[in-house]
């Protein structure tokens, strides 16, 4: 996993708690990297899982809840860090539909070793669509948080339904978006 995700997670923790809480978390997670991350580096995906588990233990929140909250936060960070992607004046649906073919493709140029999910878009209309998340990294909760962050960013009200299509070595999750 790219360091940028860890760096943003640390910021998220610092914002919501404090720098000492973060230090405790890192120590508790007992990370091979020792919690030393840079945005452009690449680190084992399991460190994210360990951090999330330690976070859960310390706060009593569930890991899915933490990942969703972090995803929501992360999207806000993307808006700040990558303003170029938000210049087109799109809406939430068209933005989400453009991740596979445009945004993640641009991400790939920046980080050639990025491990990105694969998205399928189905039944896209003005009032909704289905977005299917496929990945071997099983980050469906992070994805849900990112989607919710996206909806919040564009200020649009949608009901989001989540259906697991597959959960073995590959996660396949269908997110249905309906305009509320």
């Amino acid at each position, binding site marked *: 996993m790219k360091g940028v995700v860890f760096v943003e997670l640390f910021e998220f923790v610092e914002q919501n708690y404090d*720098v*000492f809480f*973060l*230090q405790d978390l*890192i120590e508790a997670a007992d990370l091979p990297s*020792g919690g*030393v991350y*840079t945005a452009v*580096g690449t680190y084992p995906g399991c460190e994210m899982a360990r951090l999330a588990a330690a976070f859960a233990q310390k706060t009593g929140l569930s890991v899915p809840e933490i990942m969703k909250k972090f995803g929501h936060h992360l999207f806000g960070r993307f808006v700040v860090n990558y303003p170029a992607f938000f210049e087109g004046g799109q809406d939430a649906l068209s933005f989400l539909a453009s991740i596979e073919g445009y945004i993640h493709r641009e991400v790939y140029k920046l980080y050639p070793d990025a491990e990105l999910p694969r998205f399928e878009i189905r039944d896209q209309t003005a009032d909704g669509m289905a977005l299917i998340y496929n990945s071997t990294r099983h980050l469906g909760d992070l994805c849900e948080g990112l989607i919710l962050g996206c909806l919040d960013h564009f200020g649009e009200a949608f009901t989001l339904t989540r259906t697991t299509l597959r959960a073995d070595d590959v996660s396949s999750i269908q997110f249905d978006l309906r305009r509320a």
Partner: protein
Amino acid sequence: MSDLVEKMNAIIARERASRKQAESLLETKSLELFENNRQLQASQARLEYSISVLSEIMNHAPDGVILCTDDFKIHICNRHSCELTGHAHDLLINQPVDKLVHNISLMLNRTKSGNFTFARQRLTRADGDIRIVDIKGYKGPIGQECHYVLMVQDITEKLHEEQQHSKMASQLEEARRLEAIGALSSGIAHEINTPIQFIGDNIDYLGDAMQLINQSYQRYEKLRAEVWGIEPLRDLVAEIDTFNASVDLPTMIREIRASLDDARAGIRQVRDIVRLMKEFAHPGTGQKDPVNLNELIGNVVTISRNQQKNIATISLQLDETLPQVPCRRSQIQQALLNLVLNAIDAVAETQSGSGEIAIRTCHDDEQVHLFISDTGNGIPPALRERVFDPFFTTKPVGKGTGQGLALAQDYIVTGHQGRLSLVEIEGYATTFRISLPLRAPDMNLSDQEVEHDFVS
């Protein structure tokens, strides 16, 4: 408190480590970037070199190089293609190749992948000219698409040269044959001359002897008439009379004379032919003598009699008052013969395979004119200007060298400052006119003027 300090220290250490890691990552990345850039530059230089070499090759290739894709449109072409086709580069790009060579796309489509050769194709230039080209090339994929690389070589000149060469070779062959025939005929002429000489001498001798015998006989006849009344001789005279009556001696003598005259005429004819054969064997330049053209025409008609048989009837309309012309007899005779033989060929080529040839002579104060007309198929207007070209012939290869008219023209124009031209005479398909000056012309009559006359 010390707990807090410890924590702070741990946080600072982690942050510092992160920064160090970031720095070393940055270094690695910039090193990578540098290395990539270097490689990129090197490969760009290689690429640029390849491109410039390729474009040099393309631009200096002596053949047209054309690249087209499956749509059979020209995508790339080199400088020589433009020269070859007469089209500007931009006007060639995206044009169908068929515009250059009719239906080449069909042939390209049909051909198997790999190398191909289409020999002797007709390429249409921008100005409508046709060039003959050999097209060699390669059909195969470049990237995803099927491409055709065409190397177009203009062989028009080469072909022309080859034709010229083979014509020259056959002309040479013809010349050798003529030389051999010449040598042979002069040999034969010589061989015939000797016996003919003594046959002639013998006949002359026989004629003279006959004369003497006749004179002697006349005397005997006188004697016979005198002695008729003398008794002892009467029986003898009667016997002679009976015999004479049975052989009709006077008639016989007349006939002997006539047949000796015939024999003499025959020998004269043989001598004439032998002389002509000699002349044809050695048509040297020689000096000019006054020649009666009508007589030459007679000779030519005699010589070509074999060729005329069942093909042409030759009618003569000769000016009895034709003055003698200073010329090289054998050259003019050869020129005339060529024209007559051509006329016979022309007549033979018609549907009926036969026809008429008319030869007419006339004169004015300065020149004598000779017209040779035939009822052949005529010369198409497009070819009229070319008939005097040295290698022009409508006859199939091997039938004629195309030298006949050119030679005639050379003899008449260069050899005699005369003119050979095509004219129109009602009732005939083709008429050639020969005009020869009666007096040696002044030298400032330029060749050009003469030239102009027979071209028009």
